[in-house]
């Protein structure tokens, strides 16, 4: 479980500059085991900063002013080192290329396991199992630089999964992917969440995709939590989302407009199936 208590963080600024704005401000929330959480918000809202504070890179790697507390599985992130936390939290970073420490797929997955001194036969077993799970066994000896974006993303996820963390953090994993690969990555995340009971926390700009997969949505703006609820409940918050500059799914917007025009008064759908039903309903009403 992850618990934020009155957490605020401000990156250190140069001596001559005036103090930076808080990147995160007054965050109090809990993320329980087994949740599938989506975090969204405009650029600079503090999404990456939030992921760093869960993995312990804040305050251990990034210097700054730290207020309140962040607990991961009962450990205070200020007190334990990120390496210790890494046994519980795995993070895939926003920049997919520069987080790779090896040039061959297999070596990349071995890296963490070697560091954590996992016994040889266990390493072999885990390596084969994560390769299979992400369906990248044929890529095993390939040069990472020769892979597509989606394949690289899978390798990054595999290298984290091999360490068997309870919590998996991903920072815009589909930022450079086409729609098809995006769905593929989210199907994998869903499986990790449902079958392997991992807590999955994913930062994502494409809110449409997010709503289709996550159970809980958190919206950040200027370092503050502006919305925190189930992905279905966004239908009631369209004005808020619009004011934050976040695109809501088109179907939700359509439902909202129909409702405002007094043409529809059912539940606003978040997916296409529901949208079809809504439109049929409206059309049927209009003909009478």
């Amino acid at each position: 479980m992850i618990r934020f208590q009155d957490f605020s963080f401000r990156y250190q600024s140069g001596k001559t500059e005036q103090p930076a704005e808080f990147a995160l401000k007054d965050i109090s929330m809990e993320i329980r085991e087994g949740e599938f959480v989506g975090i969204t918000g405009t650029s600079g809202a503090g999404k990456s900063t939030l992921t760093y504070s869960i993995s312990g890179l804040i305050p251990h790697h990034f210097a700054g002013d730290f207020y309140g507390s962040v607990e991961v599985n009962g450990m205070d992130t200020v007190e334990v080192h990120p390496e210790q936390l890494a046994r519980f939290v795995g993070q895939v970073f926003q920049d997919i290329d520069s987080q790779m420490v090896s040039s061959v797929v297999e070596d990349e997955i071995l890296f963490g396991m070697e560091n954590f001194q996992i016994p040889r036969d266990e390493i072999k077993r885990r390596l084969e199992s994560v390769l299979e799970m992400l369906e990248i066994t044929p890529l095993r000896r390939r040069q990472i630089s020769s892979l597509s974006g989606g394949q690289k993303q899978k390798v990054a996820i595999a290298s984290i999964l091999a360490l068997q963390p309870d919590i998996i953090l991903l920072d815009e994993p589909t930022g450079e992917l086409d729609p098809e690969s995006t769905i593929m990555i989210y199907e994998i995340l869903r499986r990790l969440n449902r079958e392997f009971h991992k807590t999955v926390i994913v930062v994502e700009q494409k809110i449409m995709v997010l709503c289709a997969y996550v159970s809980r949505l958190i919206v950040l703006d200027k370092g503050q939590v502006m919305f925190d609820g189930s992905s279905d409940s966004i239908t009631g918050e369209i004005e808020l989302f619009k004011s934050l500059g976040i695109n809501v799914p088109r179907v939700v917007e359509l439902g909202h407009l129909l409702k405002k025009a007094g043409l529809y008064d059912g539940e606003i759908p978040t997916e296409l199936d529901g949208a079809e039903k809504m439109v049929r309903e409206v059309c049927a009403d209009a003909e009478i």
Partner: protein
Amino acid sequence: MNLLQYLPGNSILHRLNPVAKLAAAFLLGICAIVSQSVIFTTLLIVLLLGICFACGLGKRALGLTRNLLVLGGMMFILQLFFVRSGDPMLSAGGFTLITQDGLSSAVLLGLRIIATMLPLMLLFAITEMNDLCGALVKRLHVPYRYAFIVTTAFRFVPLFTAEFHDIEDAQKARGVEYDGGLIKKLKLSVPLFVPLLMSSLKKVDSGAMSAQLRGFNLRTVSSGYREYPFTAADIGCILLSVLMIAAAAMI
């Protein structure tokens, strides 16, 4: 094409122990420096090229040689005009331009440059940086941290070149003309180094974070999963290189 990039393959050269490759590359470099004979140095280069062709590395080896020829050629010209001893060969208006000694030492220096650099550069074509790092740690007990830093630096080179081209493209899109003389290109490129440095530092930092979160600091000598045993071929390769030095010294 990046001349330092690894070329995947499964030739005898590829399969040698990375430490043996490194040692052989250095020894052959020494061999080229020791040699005082134009013929021996030429033969050494031909031999190196022959081995490369046999191992399917011909194209890369020729590409490298072409690039080294430029460097070798520059050294040749410098040497040609700076060495003043020996019988005059070419003079203009009573002033000696080229001497016999100058010519022979210039040829030797040019060839020597090529023969020294070629094996070292080929090392990159046949060695996976990860393997080099692993073998240095396992076999030579180099501290992992240093082996990792050095090999990672080389791995980042293509990433930086790609980044540089991205920035250059961005500038071109804004209407900066890069065509023209070398000086003009250099002048226009200098301001790009600051953004390049910034983005490179950021990349290195995110690499460091990702390594840290995967237990980099917990690593010990026994951590490596792969073993890098020496085989007869490795020992043979090193012995051969030593013999070459001996031959070079005698001829």
